[in-house]
């Protein structure tokens, strides 16, 4: 696949569903969606091995080989519900959205972030960059300043595992390509520089 932006959102949805899958059936369905959005190797006949490996990597119950949460890669320490979780939540809230999983599954799960990227792209397409370019800046931040900082490390961690089933390799590679395409699809210039106009919070202590 070349770096053609995912105009229809089909790949984004497929990847989202893949990483959010609860079982082998969900994986198979998501893989079919990914395949529909671009050529993929044929799916395996039996999804069990993929499911076991998927759970070892992303679900549990043992320690995860590649936790699918940005806070694990970006925060000063690998933990759930860290700063990155709050930031992703804040991006969503800025455009009036929230995760249906809020509070139980960290908002910075890769599937939620894929959905958020999709929402931001749709907003960009329908609403435009915003009067001062705020929406464009938000999207640029989220894709280039947030996802691009951790998704490649996440993908490396996945692909660094031994004997990975094909669908996981495919989905992870597609995720890397998706990110490249999404970055390339960002407006060449984010327009005005809203960051300078943003009122800054005081840096006082957090103690009320």
């Amino acid at each position, binding site marked *: 696949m070349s770096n053609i932006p995912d105009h229809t959102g089909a790949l984004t949805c497929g990847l989202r569903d893949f990483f959010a899958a609860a079982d082998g059936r969900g994986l198979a369905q998501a893989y079919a969606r990914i395949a529909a959005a671009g050529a993929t190797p044929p799916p395996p006949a039996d999804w069990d091995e993929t499911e076991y490996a998927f759970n070892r990597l992303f679900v549990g119950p043992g320690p995860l080989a590649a936790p699918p949460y940005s806070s694990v890669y970006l925060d000063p320490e690998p933990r759930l519900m860290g700063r990155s979780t709050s930031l992703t939540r804040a991006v969503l809230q800025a455009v009036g959205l929230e995760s249906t999983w809020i509070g139980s599954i960290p908002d910075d799960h890769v599937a939620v972030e894929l959905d958020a990227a999709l929402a931001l792209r749709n907003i960009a397409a329908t609403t435009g960059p915003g009067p001062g370019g705020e929406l464009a800046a938000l999207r640029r931040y989220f894709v280039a*300043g947030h996802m691009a900082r951790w998704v490649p490390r996440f993908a490396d961690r996945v692909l660094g595992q031994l004997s990975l089933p094909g669908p996981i390799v495919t989905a992870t590679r597609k995720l890397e390509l998706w990110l490249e395409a999404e970055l390339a699809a960002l407006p060449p210039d984010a327009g005005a520089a809203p960051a300078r106009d943003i009122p800054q919070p005081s840096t006082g202590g957090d103690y009320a």
Partner: protein
Amino acid sequence: MSGWDRTRMERTLENGVTRRGFLKGLALTGAAAAAPCLLLRALSADANQRFGEGYQVFRNACPRNCYDTCSIKSYVKDGAVRFVEGAPESTYTHGGLCVKGNSYVRYAYSPDRIKYPMVQDGRGTGRWKRISWDEAMDRIAKKILELKQQDGSLLGLALTKYSGNFGITNYGVEGLMSSLGYTTRLVGTPCWPAGIDAQNFDMGNMWCNDPEDMTQSRYIIIWGANPAWCSVHSMKYIYAAREAGAKIVVVDPVLTQTAAKADEFWQVVPGSDGALALGMCRHLLDLGLHDAGWLKANALGFDAFAAYLRENVTVEWAAKTSGVPAERIRAVAEEFARAKPATIWIGYGMQRHVNGGASVRAIDALVAMTGNIGKVGGGARYGHLQTWGFNYHAMIRKPPEGSKGFVGAAGPKGEFDFAQGGAAVKYTDRALNINKTAQEILDAKDPAVRMLWVSCKNVLSQDFDRNKLLQAFKKLELVVVADHFFNQTVEQADIVLPVTTLFEEWTVNVSYWHYWLSLNEQAVKPLFESKSNIEIAAALSKRLNELAPGSCTFPTQLDTREWMEKEFNKKVYELFGIQSWEDLRKGPVKARMPQAAWSDLKFGTPSKKYEFTSDLCAKNGNNALPVYVEGRKPYDKLRLLTPHSKFNIHSQFQNLDWMMGFNPAPVVYVHPAAAAERAIKDGDTVRVFNKTGEVRLTARLTANVARDTLLMYEGWYKGLAFNCQNLVDDTPADMGKFKTGAPGVAIHDQFADLVRA
């Protein structure tokens, strides 16, 4: 990268005010554009308020098996706990937690937590599939119904649960079993049963003074306990007593941290505590330093005890048996008798012996004969359950109509079996000894144990004779484990269920040591798909009743907060001087009880007196008098002790990376002389082995242990195979069956040898 600045954007997003200002009128454009999004929805109206700038503060309580049962304040922001503190309202917790409590945020938000119900295709294979709660409950329910149909009863279903979570509503796990009918229960406690029985025989109950009254003690002997590690909040009272002039004596086989803070430390031969106490008694008797007036008014059988001492005990014998110099036995006995009030803290470690109950009785006798029972600053302190008078609404459940069970005498199912008593029933649960879990599962017949429910317990880390346990597991057709982390037991499970942490459920907690009551509020939503134990019970009941109506009497829907409320009653409110549980939101409260246990000197024994001669004790297979009972004969070259570390409670906490940062790996402490004989140097990897099994770990040389003693701390380290239970057999202690349903276990009567590996 012109046009934006990541750091500034992040700061904007992190501040509610600036974030809202950022997109102004555009803020709700997202909802319309989110059409293809599956995991997103329009923000609910109050979300901006919820996403507040400050912290919300919640009340929590540490539910672990620990003296201190700390009252916690949790600071929540953006729906996640950010940090915790000790509740300042409790004079006991005093605003501070311990090394473990301070790791709770890390505990709750560890990426290693179990997140979903999962099923393993082949135990120990690591081939896990995620399943829905519905499917998990369906599988479990069908197995239960299959057992019932095939066996004619549910005795093939066994529950093993102990001290992983002492939140009162968690007794709903036992409640679930009761609402299924009659099941098999692993009963008893590996922890403290011999001492419980001993105190029951002597005084009619286990009832310790308020630890805060130790400030008024003039003499404190800490006997086989290590509060500097295992009850850090008690140490301030011991220090206060010392600063007010009290003498602190520590009796222990190990030069513990508590010993290092004492005035005087006696390194005692493990298991010889009874001899030492009796030697002190004999000396006081000889000098006439016993409190004859107190004994006459409040004791039964002291003359017989005195006669036993005169005939069988000498200070020299006690010195020889215990390893403590006779001159010190005499001196400390005299000091102890003359200081009023004087107290002894009887640790749980010293009763984990084949003669543990007898030793506790001998120490009780020393405290009693000096007239120190029932006095503020005095007392033979062991533990208490005086503040545990809840409704046990979650626990006490009726069996379904027509349930069949075990025919035979019913005993208590552990020290926390508050469901005991009531009308005589035709059937009972089948009781198996929790301290012989492996052997009992292997031996159980008619019906065999076919299914095991594990809750609040890490069987394969904490139960004895691990190799035998693995064999026993092979007999089981279904193993269900409800837990937080992927531990050794989960590795051997068929189905694992994710359980909520203290931050994610409502419950209420009290201590078996101090007198405080703490509310545990739900501070955050359960992470992932975790459910509290009672919600799991309700979910299973729902499925069972769908499949076979009436097969489970547990409610099929419940609210954990309501169930917390249902645990309270008028007596609890009166005891703690509160109008409603809501008062606990302002902070923990302390029971309005006299500071001294037995202050009215109305003992709970058959004679209502302190019983030096206990017929009840004799009837339960021990001696009527607190006589010396021989310890276990060594079966290997060195004594092996496996007590608690400061970094964990059993198999909890040590697995966290923060804890691994401070304490990365297990070690075995060896006396330099014993090490030299085996050419072992500090830091060498060694193999410690005995008839039960072996472990490999690093040797540390220290004179804190005697030359015939090895010391390693129990615990579960993430990613390490270490398990001290490989070396601990299931030999029983002398007491425990009377009050807890099964005798204790001689954890510290173990022997081993080591070689360089």
